[in-house]
């Protein structure tokens, strides 16, 4: 097979993350493309969590349709996954009791294997890794190295016991399934040097690559893993990672650091972002380069803490009181998250204004296979702090000097014989408080002027998988449909539109990885005349569609929406789009 979908289900606390990541890394190392998403409940133990692992010989960026393999660490969970299983699916669980007929169930005593070979029932997860490898036809080589990297610091023989449990799981399947292994993968078609990395980790890594020095946050899903990653690498990367008493403090601390000249980033989500609103406005007024990683989850209020949504699009664009320029980046996946972090620091510092990286739980927690080379090409943007201060007469520095593009030369406090002010009140060029109407207008215009500069920095959107137009132009242009999306739905929409093209629909995707400043001209140019426009977005009211109307005067023919806390599936988008395309052109 060129694709296998596995579901690994268990209770919180059973180590599902370990299984999916270990399995994923084994598959990536073997040359496959892998995509893993996490479905987690808001609790520490128990409940029902699962990971979807999709392995392909071709690149992949979305969950698959039906699963061919289900590994259940708790047999009681099998029933819940039956509707999502392919007809020829294999189920691995401690007991095969109660499963419908026709389903190929393998009774695999995971718990016994764990106890026997791992000396600990928790090692059932390692046994599951071995079993899964066997089912897709991969040898369990290199497991020791894999477990070493995860458990080395636990010391003792933890690594050894994990390997033993995994190998036992592998053997058990091989013995059981000797006669047939229906889901064996074809050899990989491409060889690549890939990393398996979560969106959150890629974002953090990108920030480190961009030279971040101070990372702040208060624990809140789905932003916590960014801070944790930074913390783990704090020493080697020369970072200060500060967990503050609340989000208000996190943001204000980061502003202080940015003012002092350190690249600073605050990581938060939903309710935490609400609390950061005042500080965001402060960063805009004081012209401090501040990067905010903002995770989206279903709301309002506490909503659903561990689930996904894209409903904070307009909120992030208009958050904070008063008016000030900002950029809002909406990366689709781990690779884009990495680059978004670089862009964010580049823009924030060059334009001395806040930049928001808006992501969602799905993107942050999913594990993506990323070409290593695509990350290596990055260099952090040069510092915008004026290095040659000799030209500035002593004590004559003007923090808010009015310039054509709105950007004032930046000095940081501690520069010899210069004073640096940051003022939250309306201020003069020197940074002193003012109530002058003329100065106010000058300063508002100065700040707003940055927006057009920011726009030029950002790569515009493009039509992906452009429909090949016949030379004779037989294809009527108005039949073409452009599907707009932003953020994490890119992989899903790309696959759905590809399927639709396979069915003969003239449809292509435009993904926005930056929604503010809105690339209105570029979008209008892409749409041209007569093309039908629809959006796919995970919110109730179609916020991207609203933005298209607001900024470009484009009225969408429809929107595929979802707001149940789960990521849209390819099949759902396919059906939704087909209805919209059919409806209008039919």
């Amino acid at each position, binding site marked *: 097979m060129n694709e296998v979908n596995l579901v690994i289900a268990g209770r919180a606390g059973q180590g599902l993350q370990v299984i999916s990541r270990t399995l994923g890394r084994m598959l990536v190392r073997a040359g496959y493309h892998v995509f893993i998403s996490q479905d987690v409940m808001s*609790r*520490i*133990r128990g409940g029902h969590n699962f990971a979807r692992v999709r392995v392909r010989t071709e690149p992949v960026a979305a969950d698959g349709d039906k699963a061919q393999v289900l590994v259940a660490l708790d047999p009681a969970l099998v029933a819940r996954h039956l509707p999502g299983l392919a007809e020829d699916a294999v189920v691995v669980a401690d007991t095969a009791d109660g499963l419908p007929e026709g389903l190929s169930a393998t009774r695999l005593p995971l718990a016994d294997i764990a106890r026997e070979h791992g000396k600990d029932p928790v090692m059932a997860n390692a046994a599951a890794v071995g079993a899964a490898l066997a089912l897709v036809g991969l040898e369990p080589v290199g497991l020791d190295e894999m477990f070493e990297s995860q458990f080395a610091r636990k010391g003792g023989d933890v690594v050894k016991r994990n390997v033993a449990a995994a190998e036992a799981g592998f053997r058990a399947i091989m013995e059981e399934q000797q006669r047939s292994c229906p889901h064996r993968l074809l050899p990989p078609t491409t060889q690549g040097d890939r990393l398996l990395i979560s969106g959150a980790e890629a974002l953090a890594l990108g920030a480190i690559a961009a030279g971040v020095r101070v990372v702040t946050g208060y*624990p809140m899903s789905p932003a916590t893993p960014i801070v944790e990653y930074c*913390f783990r690498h704090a020493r080697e990367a020369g970072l200060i990672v500060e*967990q503050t008493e609340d989000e208000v403090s996190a943001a204000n601390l980061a502003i202080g650091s940015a003012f002092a000249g350190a690249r600073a980033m605050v990581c938060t989500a939903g309710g935490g972002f609400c609390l950061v609103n005042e500080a965001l406005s402060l960063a805009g007024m004081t012209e401090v380069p501040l990067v905010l990683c903002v995770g989206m989850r279903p709301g309002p209020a*506490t909503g659903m*803490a561990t689930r996904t949504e894209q409903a904070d699009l307009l909120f992030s664009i208009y958050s904070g009181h008063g008016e000030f320029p900002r950029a809002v980046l909406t990366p689709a996946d781990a690779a884009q998250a990495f680059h978004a972090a670089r862009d964010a620091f580049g823009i924030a510092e060059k334009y001395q204004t806040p930049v928001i990286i808006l992501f969602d739980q799905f993107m942050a927690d999913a594990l993506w296979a990323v070409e290593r080379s695509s990350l290596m090409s990055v260099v952090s943007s040069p510092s915008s702090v004026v290095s040659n201060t000799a030209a500035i007469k002593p004590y004559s520095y003007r923090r808010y000097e009015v310039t054509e593009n709105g950007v004032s030369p930046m000095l940081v406090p501690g520069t010899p014989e210069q004073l640096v002010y940051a003022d939250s009140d309306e201020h003069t060029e020197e940074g002193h408080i003012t109530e002058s109407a003329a100065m106010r207008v000058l300063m508002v215009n100065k700040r707003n002027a940055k927006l057009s500069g920011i726009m030029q920095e950002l790569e515009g959107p493009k039509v992906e998988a452009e429909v090949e137009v016949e030379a004779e132009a037989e294809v009527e242009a108005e039949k073409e449909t452009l599907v707009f999306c932003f953020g994490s739905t890119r992989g899903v929409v790309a696959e759905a539109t590809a399927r639709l093209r396979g069915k003969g629909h003239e449809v292509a995707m435009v993904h926005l990885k930056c929604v503010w400043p809105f690339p209105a001209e570029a979008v209008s140019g892409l749409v041209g005349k007569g093309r039908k426009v629809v959006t796919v977005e995970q919110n109730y009211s179609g916020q991207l569609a609203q933005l298209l109307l607001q900024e470009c005067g484009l009225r969408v023919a429809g929107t595929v929406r979802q707001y149940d806390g789960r990521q849209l599936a390819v099949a759902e988008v396919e059906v939704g789009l087909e209805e919209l395309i059919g409806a209008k052109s039919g």
Partner: protein
Amino acid sequence: MAEDKAWSTSAEITWCPGCGNFGILAALRQALAAAGLEPWQVVVVGGIGQSGKVAQYIGANFLHGLHGRAIPHALGVKLANPELKVIVVGGDGDLYGEGGNHLLHAFRRNPDIVCLAHNNGVYGLTKGQAAPTSSPGFAPKNREAGTHIPAFNPLAAGLAMGGSFIARGFAGDIKHLARLIGEAFEHKGFGFIDILQPCVTYNHVNTAEWYRKRVYDLELESHNPLDADAARARILEWPAEGDDVEIPIGVFYRSRRPAYETCGRPGQAVTRLEFDIDVVKKAMEEFR
């Protein structure tokens, strides 16, 4: 009087097996049953975190609000309707970190609210970060932030802010805790109880066993809770790394102050006042 078992709900409890929250929940149920209250007379205001979920499990009215905000939510309820018995339930991150400012002012205001602070020295629901009450030297998995600074001492803060009922309980001693909660119910003012509890998943230093070996009951030491100096001394008793100082539990300090909702307030449930248009007419006249 409602039976102990009446103080439960149909909601599935999503705590880890062995969690200290179970002890606190049991103690609260016992205390409620003993206090002769009916569930509909009680409002439990929960913060966000594993602790705040007590609101969902106790079988009374609840307002399960925002992280860190249980105290102002509760104050709003109490000021609007002083007849309700209002109980705040939150965690250490919730009440001491995110909502720390509100706690300081609650001690000052002294509303007739019972506040149960689940203190396990670690963040649970976000998976193991240091909390304001994490002891120095406590090294949560992969993290060290917050552990180089002294732990927040809510009892000392309460005493400094003029708190009128300052107590500490232990989730492992349900009987004692239930009695403490009962005393807090009877106290006309801000009945604050810091409750030591183990976190079986993330705190491997301050385990149930660790606490059990160290806690002692202030009452057995003939501590006088009306003596602020004695209270201060007891409040500062806490084992440093490696030493075997014991940890007192019980009521450290108690004083009589009028409850906030009775000070210069309408003194009744404004929720039940009838609208009186004459008030508006009269108010309007002042603008002639």
